[in-house]
């Protein structure tokens, strides 16, 4: 009962909700880059929403299972090629033992989460299965996946029955108003006062391009220089997921899952929780524009997203065959997506889009 890696793809790691509670000792939490996608992929295959997934970056893995399993891919515009049959993302796929799985890459999005029914049988390290590449801990042997890796599977709570009736509509990853620039909401501070009025204006009125020097630690952006009053250095303080540091060259760096826990650059703002998954899906070359938001507004959005997430799980449950239990209602923060969902049920045209092309 295992997953066999034929070709891992360039940056494929095991991630779950993250290693929480050790930041005071200097451990980055790691964890999902796109929390919404990972939870959804898990729920589609009958797992708990915080279970470990195989996370890949742009190029997915090639693999097979030595037993029949359900898998699902969510995140960017990916697809599953199972022995020559192509299935879309956002849908459970019932894969017979031995069938070669490849991931197809589309035009938008960069991170993909592949969930396997039952979950990956990987030991917890300090409360998490997430890979921390920098420290070489967690995940599969503390490293990115390699060809020939064999990863054991846990046995699914729902058995190995066919779940391919389960699908969700795809999430919208680009703005319908302006597909070229993604608006990302941020909360100012905690060092906004280190920047000149002109610098702050530049930051909010310009657009910034995601550069190729972007990874799980942080996304380096490039654009007009954000002017500071004095220098950009501060007495090191704490960093969160989404903290926007301004480097010595006046360029923003958005800190991501594998960030350092503390840092010495001034932070002009932080990306709000519900926008982090969408921001994480931006490819190098794409542009962002930062938009101010208050902490109260951001927290209201989290509560709404949470409510929506629970609703989605309920809808899935309703459409389930009798006796089928939908897991994933553990109610973690900020899970839902901000667009792409109807509040009650999904329309016929969504069904077509989300369904497989059998």
């Amino acid at each position, binding site marked *: 009962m295992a997953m066999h890696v034929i070709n891992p793809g360039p940056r494929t790691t095991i991630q779950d909700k993250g290693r929480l509670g050790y930041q005071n000792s200097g451990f980055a939490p790691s964890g999902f880059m796109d929390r919404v996608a990972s939870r959804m992929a898990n729920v589609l295959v009958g797992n708990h929403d915080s279970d470990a997934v195989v996370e890949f970056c742009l190029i997915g893995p090639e693999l097979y299972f030595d037993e029949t399993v359900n898998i699902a891919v969510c995140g960017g515009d990916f697809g599953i090629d199972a022995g020559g049959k192509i299935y879309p993302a956002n849908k459970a796929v019932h894969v017979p033992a031995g069938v070669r799985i490849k991931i197809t890459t589309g035009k938008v999005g960069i991170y993909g989460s592949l969930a396997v029914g039952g979950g990956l049988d990987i030991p917890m390290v300090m409360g998490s299965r997430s890979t921390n590449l920098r*420290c070489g801990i967690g995940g599969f042997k503390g490293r990115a996946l390699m060809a020939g890796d064999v990863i054991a599977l846990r046995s699914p709570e729902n058995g190995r029955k066919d779940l391919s009736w389960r699908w969700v509509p795809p999430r919208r990853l680009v703005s319908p108003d302006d597909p070229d620039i993604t608006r990302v909401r941020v909360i100012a501070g905690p060092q906004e006062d280190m920047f000149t009025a002109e610098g702050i204006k530049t930051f909010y009125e310009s657009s910034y391009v995601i550069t190729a020097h972007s990874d799980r630690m942080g996304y380096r952006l490039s654009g007009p220089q954000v002017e500071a009053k004095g220098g950009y250095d501060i007495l090191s303080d704490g960093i969160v997921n989404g903290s926007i540091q301004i480097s010595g060259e006046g360029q923003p760096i958005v800190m991501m899952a594998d960030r350092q826990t503390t840092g010495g650059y001034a932070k002009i703002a932080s990306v709000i929780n519900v926008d982090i998954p969408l921001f994480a899906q931006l490819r190098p070359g794409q542009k962002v524009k930062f938009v101010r938001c208050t*902490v109260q507004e951001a927290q209201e959005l989290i509560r709404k997203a949470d409510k929506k997430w629970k609703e989605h799980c309920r809808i899935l449950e309703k459409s389930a065959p009798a006796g089928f239990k939908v897991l994933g209602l553990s109610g973690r923060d*900020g899970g839902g997506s901000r667009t792409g969902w109807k509040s009650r049920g999904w329309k016929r045209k969504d069904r077509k889009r989300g369904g497989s092309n059998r």
Partner: protein
Amino acid sequence: MEYRILPVGDSALTIIFGTEIDPETSRIVRTARKYLAKKNIKGVNEYVQTYATLMVHYRPAMIGYDELEARIRTELAQMDLGSGQMKKKTIVIPVCYGGEFGPDLENVCEHAGLTGEEVIRRHSSVDYLIYMLGFMPGFVYLGGMDRSISTPRLKNPRERLEKGSVGIAGDQTGIYPLVSPGGWQIIGRTPLELYDQNREKPILYEAGEFIRFVPITEKEFHAIRKQVEDGTYEYQWIREG
């Protein structure tokens, strides 16, 4: 005690107690961390201590910013700073200085105009306050090094420093708990395992505690290393006050 509270995104806030590196500010931050942690505030995940600030990570689905800020202000108003006069707790870190383990000891001697023995004596005669951890797991920002042994970083950083490497960079000294690239002047190595995922506390020490380096010979290094690997080594703590 004066402080400011500011949001850091929607899932953390920072309590700012000062803007300088100094032992008294650090003591206040630590006292507040310990005090608040004991209050088990609903929705708070963890506290991260830095030089002069305390970061509070929380779950906004369980507690909103306004409520948490008010709660923290109420709690801090009742905090007795005197009771935070915690006992001084020092961990003993044995270090084999020079030779293969400390290839840059000579650089430090040359820069300081001191003999190797004297550099070692000055480096190991201070109890260093751990201001904070960060940069990598278990990496300590220490205060209190004798400035007479300050030495600038290497011009060309090494690609690989072994775990346990003890070094100097400018006025700072510290230890690398894991293998890492780095530009510090490496003067010795400890045989201790500073990070162990299977230990109850994966990282031995925390901010507010002290570190004392004790010189050992190469023979002692290997003997302690063996005990550490066998799981028989007993970590030495000095408690005072």
